């Protein structure tokens, strides 16, 4: 028998940044390997964009601003009106697939394996988050490009684009930490794909598709105070080059930071909960 004293463990020190890089690389690789999922993520908001502009837009456009003629003018106005909401829905679309990916990890054996290794838990979940934020930026750029091809003209300078990117990173972090938590807490992959439907539906109950002052009072009150409205209004202001009210912007940032922290704590608790 080998006389070497094998009791001293390999000196595997916690190295969360390094583990986060490894797990992010894995998640990005998985996205490349599963392109149909990425295609669905982009297809959902694009189909909504086409539907809302070319079917409803002619009529709806006259309802979002005064003096707009229904028809072609209505469509052009409505396209500009809903682009912020469509970009936000691109992010929720990514969030939904992230929840599914995390649930697949949790219900398969891979997370059980990782929990028996010295890997930092934050890296296992954070890899999904970082990759999802990257995916959000790419998908949102693609969707924005399609909107431009349809005739949308944002009025944004370099500084505005930088602010827009930064804000989307923050918004993506909030959404994906929440969806990672939903995926980690889900008992099955099926339920992980259902829970984030809430995130997909919420933008409709906000200022994304019609002005909130056209809504009945209870719905309007909800719409004005739910997180997606300040987020959509911030994106709208940044894209249109119009000033965003400081109150709106800070409310949006506050919601994002708050939701990211809640998502992170929830995800961590769900990850630690033993499953046998």
């Amino acid at each position: 028998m080998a006389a070497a004293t094998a009791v001293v463990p390999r000196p595997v020190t916690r190295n969360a940044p390094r583990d986060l890089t490894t797990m992010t690389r894995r998640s990005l690789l998985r996205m490349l390997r599963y392109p149909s999922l990425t295609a669905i993520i982009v297809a959902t908001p694009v189909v909504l964009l086409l539907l809302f502009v070319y079917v409803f837009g002619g009529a709806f456009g006259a309802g979002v601003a005064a003096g707009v003629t229904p028809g072609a003018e209505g469509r052009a106005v409505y396209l500009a009106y809903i682009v912020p909401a469509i970009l936000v829905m691109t992010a929720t679309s990514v969030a939904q697939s992230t929840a599914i990916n995390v649930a697949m990890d949790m219900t398969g054996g891979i997370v059980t394996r990782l929990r028996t290794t010295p890997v930092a838990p934050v890296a296992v979940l954070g890899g999904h988050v970082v990759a999802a934020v990257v995916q959000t930026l790419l998908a949102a750029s693609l969707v924005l490009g399609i909107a431009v091809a349809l005739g949308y003209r944002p009025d944004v300078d370099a500084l505005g684009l930088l602010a827009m990117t930064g804000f989307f990173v923050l918004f993506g972090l909030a959404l994906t930490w929440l969806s990672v938590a939903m995926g980690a807490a889900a008992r099955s992959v099926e339920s992980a794909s259902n829970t984030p439907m809430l995130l997909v539906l919420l933008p409709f109950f906000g200022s994304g598709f019609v002005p909130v002052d056209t809504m009945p009072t209870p719905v309007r009150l909800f719409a004005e105070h739910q997180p997606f409205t300040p987020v959509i209004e911030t994106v709208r202001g940044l894209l249109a080059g119009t000033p965003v009210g400081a109150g709106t912007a800070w409310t949006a940032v506050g919601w994002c930071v708050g939701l990211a922290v809640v998502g992170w704590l929830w995800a961590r608790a769900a990850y630690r909960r033993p499953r046998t």
Partner: protein
Amino acid sequence: MPVPPLPPAIEVVGLHKRFGDQTVLDGLDLVVPAGTVTALLGPNGAGKTTTVSILATLLAADGGTARVLGHDVATDPQAVRGLIGVTGQLSAVDPLLTVTENLRLMADLFHLPRAEGRRRVAELVERFGLGEVARRRGQLLSGGTTRKLDLAMTLVAGPRVVFLDEPTTGLDPRARHDLWDQVRVLVADGVSVLLTTQYLDEADRLADAVGVLHGGRLVAHDTPAGLKAAHAAGSLDDVFLALTAPVPSADAA
């Protein structure tokens, strides 16, 4: 100068675990000497997987102590995680990554230097005969090959104690024999193994000692030959049936 004696690979004293009002482990005592293979047998629900989960730092015990190579799993789980490898009932292979990528993932997570990681991965691909499927994705592998990759991933970091939780369930006879050969190679390298299994011939062939779990504690613990002799039985099947009568109060052996 004499080498200080190795602590046991596994030392479990008075382990208790309840799920709700169901007692799964009721004062389990178990010692696995370093460098040996112990097989845990027992009916479904006897607590085999629970025992492995506690030793592998996945689950906290309600009472008692469990040590792996001298490290308490409750107070120093990080040291334990640096020493163990676990291959469970679920396949812990990433279905979208290739065989090589799965192995490299483990090398990276254990912070092996790049060159050492590559060498280690190449070595394991060779040893497990995975060369032909090295670029194939996890989801496209057969059951037997998936299990081989699973075990190879467990071994990337060179664990000193390996837990095999029903490692050959659902495998065809050739794949089972291949896996048994790999376990023998491990033991020859001085690795200690705790194996849970439903297959009594598996315990008979691989294990230095067999523990029979019933009613949350060990009702027998001996060499396979010793157990058969003590129960005047021709096979471990007969020993198993004699010791694990379905009435929980009929524990007296």
